[in-house]
């Protein structure tokens, strides 16, 4: 770390930020319970925790969006009072929100200038702003075109605007709230390069995440929050991923689920040379042939946008198949309406669980009967049987450990993990013959991920045929019996579990045939 107290951006350094005994209560919830935390110039300090552990609450307190009920914040050893984002910005604290705070219809320069006084009085001074953006971009290695519109830029580039926005406002300390959640692996690498440069220059960074390998890779210290309490802080070099996972969840976590020995049975679902279009009008699937057997998980690996979505849509009847044939238990289901395919006991765990998996403004109980609502015992002669719907919800909430205040709670008020449990409960409890699971653990924390994977393996044991579509290669490798790699709408190869390595799959995912 350089000796100077001035950062390359020309702003003063923050040597330390310390939180002491921060307590924040929401109605019915103790979100932060006497939490201590600190970060120093020149380090990346990870704040780790499950969804709902209180990470975001703690950081929003630092950023002035929440006001703590107890506790104090010390900046360079002196107590400070932060009552609004403006206060924290003035103190040199910046925050990169998980959901970007950008206006898509404005240019990069306009987004940066927003809310700042202009050097030209009431008129905007976008030329001066652009010049300063380019200076900062040069210092920190953030390539960006100030005159580009935000909607034209990739997610990774948009994140860079957020970083520049904070630097422009003189941020010496940056809070990054799950910054890698939306990035491709390449973009994550680029972000890490930028983060390393910033700490070398004397910035202090707080990195919120629940991805353990990232924490181990980029952070010097790590603190773990669980249920609103600080479990502990340690140098990253003295911990392992396994330790951190156990800390976060509060019990032993199995990274490699027990797959057991399952006898593969007859072919349940068969795709023969299936072709269909994509939303962009280009071919989505270019002749895909697959067999999925009873008691088998077939993993579909591939880089996002290579036909995974189209595959799920085609099988479930949501997209018109333009060629080829889909057979479910010897019956031709090609281009049948989705309702009829559902009737043949095909279950679907959709990728966009909030949009396609449930109705946000319906209760937990209602969401649990979405697929079977028109049938006994949930309805008769067109009238709903509320008693049966309610007892079904009670039973599923208990069986699938859904954390919800009641079965009358609206689905949108639950966490991502619990929402996925509702989808799982609905789709699995009907004893399906085939399950299509698309990105079933995306965005879920470790505990929920573990639970979802266990449930899929349990279904496999019961003889269900499962297609697992995932962009998480670790997940594919952990669960699948066979792995089909999809590239530009075609299956490159189908690799048995015993022969699958990340290297081999990686090449196939890039469209390269070994030899």
């Amino acid at each position: 770390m350089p000796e100077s107290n001035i950062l390359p951006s020309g702003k003063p350094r923050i040597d330390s930020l310390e939180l002491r005994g921060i307590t924040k209560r929401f109605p019915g919830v103790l979100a932060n319970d006497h939490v201590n935390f600190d970060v120093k110039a020149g380090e990346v300090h990870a704040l780790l925790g499950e969804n709902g552990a209180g990470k975001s609450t703690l950081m929003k307190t630092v950023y002035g969006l929440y006001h703590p009920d107890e506790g104090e914040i010390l900046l360079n050893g002196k107590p400070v009072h932060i009552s609004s984002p403006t206060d924290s910005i003035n103190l040199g604290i910046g925050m990169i929100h998980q959901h970007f705070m950008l206006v898509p219809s404005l240019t990069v320069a306009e987004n940066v200038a927003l809310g700042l006084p202009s050097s030209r009085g009431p008129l905007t001074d976008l030329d001066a702003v652009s010049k300063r953006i380019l200076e900062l971009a040069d210092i920190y290695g953030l390539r960006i075109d100030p005159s580009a519109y935000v909607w034209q830029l990739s997610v990774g580039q948009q994140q860079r605007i957020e970083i520049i926005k904070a630097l422009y406002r003189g941020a010496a300390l940056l809070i990054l709230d799950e910054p890698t959640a939306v990035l491709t692996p390449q973009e994550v690498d680029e972000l890490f390069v930028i983060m390393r440069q910033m700490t070398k220059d004397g910035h202090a960074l707080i990195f919120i995440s629940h991805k353990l390998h990232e924490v181990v890779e980029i952070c010097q210290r790590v603190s773990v929050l669980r249920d609103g309490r600080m479990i502990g802080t340690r140098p990253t070099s003295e911990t392992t991923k396994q330790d951190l996972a156990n800390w976060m969840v509060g019990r032993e976590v199995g990274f490699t689920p027990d797959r057991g020995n399952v006898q593969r049975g007859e072919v349940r679902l068969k795709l023969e040379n299936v072709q269909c279009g994509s939303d962009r009008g280009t071919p989505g699937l270019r002749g895909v042939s697959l067999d999925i057997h009873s008691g088998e998980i077939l993993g579909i690996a591939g880089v996002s946008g290579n036909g995974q979505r189209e595959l799920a849509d085609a099988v479930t009847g949501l997209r018109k198949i333009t060629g080829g044939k889909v057979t479910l238990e010897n019956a031709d289901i090609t281009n049948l309406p989705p309702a009829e395919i559902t009737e043949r006991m095909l279950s679907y765990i959709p990728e966009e669980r909030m949009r396609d998996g449930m109705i946000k403004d319906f209760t937990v109980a209602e969401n649990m009967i979405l697929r079977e609502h028109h049938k006994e015992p949930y309805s008769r002669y067109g009238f709903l049987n509320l008693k049966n719907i309610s007892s079904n919800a009670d039973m599923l909430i208990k069986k699938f450990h859904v954390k919800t205040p009641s079965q009358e709670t609206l689905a949108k008020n639950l966490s991502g993990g619990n929402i996925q449990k509702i989808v799982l409960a609905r789709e699995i409890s009907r004893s399906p013959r085939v399950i299509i699971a698309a990105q079933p653990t995306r965005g879920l924390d470790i505990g929920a991920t573990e639970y979802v994977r266990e449930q899929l393996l349990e279904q496999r044991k019961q003889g269900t045929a499962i297609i697992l579509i995932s962009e998480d290669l670790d997940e594919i490798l952990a669960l699948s019996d066979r792995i089909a790699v999809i590239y530009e709408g075609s299956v490159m190869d189908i690799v048995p579990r015993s022969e699958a390595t990340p290297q081999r799959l990686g090449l196939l995912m890039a469209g390269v045939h070994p030899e």
Partner: protein
Amino acid sequence: MISELFTMTVLIGILSSGVRLATPYLYASIGETFGQRSGVLNLGVEGQMLLGAFTAFYVAMNTGSLWLGVLAAMIVGAVMGLAMAFVTVNLHAQQGISGIGFYLFGLGMSDLLFQKMMGTVRTVQGFPKIGIPFLSDIPGIGDIFFNHNILVYGAYLLVLVAWFVLNKTNLGLKIRAVGENPDAADSLGVSVARVRYFTIILGGTLSGVAGASLSIALLNVFQQNMTSGLGFIAVALVYFGAWRPFGVLIGALLFSMVNSLQLWIQVLGVPIPSEIAVMMPYVLTILVLVATVSKVRAPSALTKPFEREE
């Protein structure tokens, strides 16, 4: 020869009154543009215009000062804007419904005041025509563009000012940001509430002027419900103009020209049923909206109340 001259005169007349009749549309639509760019749909424009029209007329008639009339209409419009802002910004009311409420209030209130305070329809001497030196002498062009009263010129100047404010000033940047992503604006210390209060009150003020332009600059009378849907067309024009002042200008001219045409058709006794003629601007509203609305994207936060996530 004579019939040709006659046609030319009529054409100039149609265009000239078209330019003039765009005035109330412009004030009201530009005001509405500011509101919508900041994310607030104000459907109460018609009510604000009616109250503005009455106030301007009543004050002008009793004080003899047209400018006091305009000022009074602006104040009444601003107060209605203030009420609208409170209801939509602080109380998070559904904007379409509350706007209709304000419309009905303005309609009823202007009628009531008219009955109680005036009783019968009267006229005032409105703003006089001011010919722009030299320009107004150009044959044809002069009469069409450069021989109008001060409020007409003001309306066209307003378009230019609105464009400048929205695109070249810090305030405009804030307005656009608040209408597209209020969370982002809030996170940078921009007060969403303050920006929206400003635009809604500005919109009300300009609607007041729009009303005044009808009652003391164009028609020089006040009658019950004299706007007859003009305020709603002004809202539609904002969509037509894709939330841009110059787009709104084109729309306003289009409608006022059609309106002017139908007036002249009636005046000249062209054998088209007057009901059909009167319908023309309204039918055009629907057709144009159907043709354009799907192609332009409204401000993302339009009609959405803002509340900081807690």
